[in-house]
């Protein structure tokens, strides 16, 4: 019997970065998983939760729990959204009748790189990507889910990929959800510092396990006409031999 995972696609990935999810599916299938996508899923509730609107976030969280209650494993291409489910649902749903279910779902929900390395025990996915790449350690993946090495283990197995470490790779890129709009000046300044550190590596691509950081960095790098482009981890891992001349890019 084929092993099965349920895919949770964050709302902004669904709407703005569909290729991220497409590539996530490709990699999961290639290593032997059947992927299902429950179509009544929406958002984990993080935007409201992080802005202080816990009463608005709660029903979204409850909905998430109901949608994924019967999934064996939930895989999500975003460290931030997994943090919402795993770290914050227990608090948010402390008094909910779905609390037990929430804890159970949280324990079966994994960030993409975490799932590959820790659950599927795969680091070699047969990818080829002959480019210089630098890795930005997204905050939620790093400090909430403690995923420091997993993404790097995967990148090191990619044929042709040259991994270049940037200065302050673990410093926030400045996205921070509604922070990026409420405090646009600070967010942009932080993004600029990150962009300078990326540029100093002379890498062609910057990758991360959070497409939200990459969405912000893509905007910052684009505005600066920077040489480096953003690419989500799964989009690198999805590249097979022979490599496509230029990997799919989402540009406006």
């Amino acid at each position, binding site marked *: 019997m084929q092993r099965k995972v349920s895919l949770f*696609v964050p709302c902004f990935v669904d*709407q703005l970065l569909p290729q991220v999810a497409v590539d996530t599916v490709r990699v999961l299938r290639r290593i032997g998983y059947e992927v299902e*996508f429950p179509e009544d899923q929406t958002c984990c509730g993080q935007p*409201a939760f992080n802005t*202080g609107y816990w009463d608005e976030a709660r029903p979204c969280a409850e909905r998430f729990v109901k949608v994924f209650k019967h999934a064996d494993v939930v895989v999500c291409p975003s460290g931030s959204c997994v943090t919402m489910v795993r770290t914050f649902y227990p608090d948010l749903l402390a008094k909910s009748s779905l609390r037990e279910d929430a804890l159970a779902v949280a324990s079966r929900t994994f960030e993409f790189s975490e799932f590959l390395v820790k659950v599927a025990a795969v680091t070699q996915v047969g990818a080829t990507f002959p480019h210089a790449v630098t890795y930005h350690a997204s905050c939620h993946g790093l400090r909430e889910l403690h995923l420091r090495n997993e993404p790097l283990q995967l990148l090191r197995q990619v044929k042709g990929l040259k991994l270049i470490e940037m200065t302050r790779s673990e410093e*926030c890129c400045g996205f*921070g959800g509604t922070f990026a709009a409420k405090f646009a000046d600070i967010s942009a300044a932080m993004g600029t510092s990150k962009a300078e550190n990326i540029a100093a590596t002379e890498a062609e691509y910057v990758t991360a396990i959070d497409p939200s950081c990459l969405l912000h960095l*893509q905007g910052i790098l684009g505005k600066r006409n920077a040489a480096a482009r953003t690419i989500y981890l799964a989009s690198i891992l999805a590249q097979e031999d022979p490599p496509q001349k230029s990997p799919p890019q*989402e540009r406006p």
Partner: protein
Amino acid sequence: MSTAAQRFLQDAAVKSADLMHREIIQRGMDSYDAAHLKGRARIKDWEAARQKCQEIKREAINHLDRYLLQFEEKVVARGGHVFWAANSEEACAYIKNLATRRNVRTVVKSKSMVTEEIHLGPALEKAGIKVWETDFGEFIVQLREEGPYHIVTPAMHLLRGQIATLFQEKLGQKIESDDPAYLMAVARRVLRQAFFSAEMGISGANFLVADAGVIAISTNEGNGRLCTSIPRIHVVVTGIEKVIPRLDDLAVLWPVLATSGTGQGITTYGTLIGGPRRPGEADGPEEFHVVLVDNGRSQLLADAEQREVLHCIRCGACLNICPVFRHVGGHTYGTTYPGPIGSVLTPHLNGIMEFKHLSYASSLCGACSSVCPVKIDLHHHLLQNRRNATEAGATKSSERLMFRAWRHAMLHPRIYALGGWLMRNSLRMVYGLGLVGSILDPMRVWNRYRAPVPLPSESFRARWRKDRAAN
């Protein structure tokens, strides 16, 4: 009149675009980072040390009443005085009255953030008393008539050339060099006279040791010892949360504080003081007063969810690692305590209505929590502050409406999908007309600093459905 939030936004816009400022702070923090890492490596098991410090502070805070009384009893038995100040006014009035009664004309101060919090300096100056800040950094910012930029390194935003110019202007003497050792010697000569003319010395306390009944101070310049031993009156001003149960606890707290604060294994001076000069002793003050400041701390103590914020030992590590602090700088916060701890604490001490914006001025990256030596979950407290602000009705009604609409969409997948489609297509239309960043562009704030987001023609779910239909 502008609000604290408006001032913050304005100052943040200026500072975050100030590349000179960014460079100075970045350089300062780089050398701190190197020292901090080296310092941590000296401690055999850093995580275990943090754990231990957290346990000590938790015990102290959970039994604050008992340990404070124990501390008071010992100090009083040695002939010292302890005054319990409910707020800034009471604390300042006590010290001012004491100074007036004892004919104090000059006060020397060693570094203390609580005296900044209660605005003690201005209160004493208003009573005609000359106040000297004797910590080198504090001395500099006092001459500049500004508050400390950082709770540990108050003048880290200045270049030595600026300090030389400042001394030339304010000290009435010719300054011949901007060599740090020379500038320090200049300050030392000026301050030496102040130490010997002052009738009162004021210090803070890093810890109040309950079982020994002493205050513990960590300093580097020696000014602290001069303040506490030369003048005939010594006044300690400190927050009630500084108490720790046992003298033995310093064995871990002192090195962890020094490591987190500056990367030092231990600060140059560690001073324990428990009362006035005793018969037969060569030096020390005739009078010893401890002013225990509450100023909103009891209220925080009553909040089980956020009580641990009182564990803070004011090391400054969360400021140093904070990318927001690094970009906006200390003064932008407009508070006594800047950085992550300030953003968590200030809404509690000074009001959530006026200071809630600070809890939002964070990307929630969690770097602060990862370095806190007493393991305060700082960024999660920011989330709780945000929730408290929302529940208190302190947020904008337009935002409340927006999130209500958002919830409705998220609970109905069809409305969500339609909303997403509408958003993408209306943005494509606006951008197609070349109106990026215009008043018609709902993403104009985003687009001020960034290229527009990609707008694919299809969402993932639409693609998924199509693929399934095809197979």
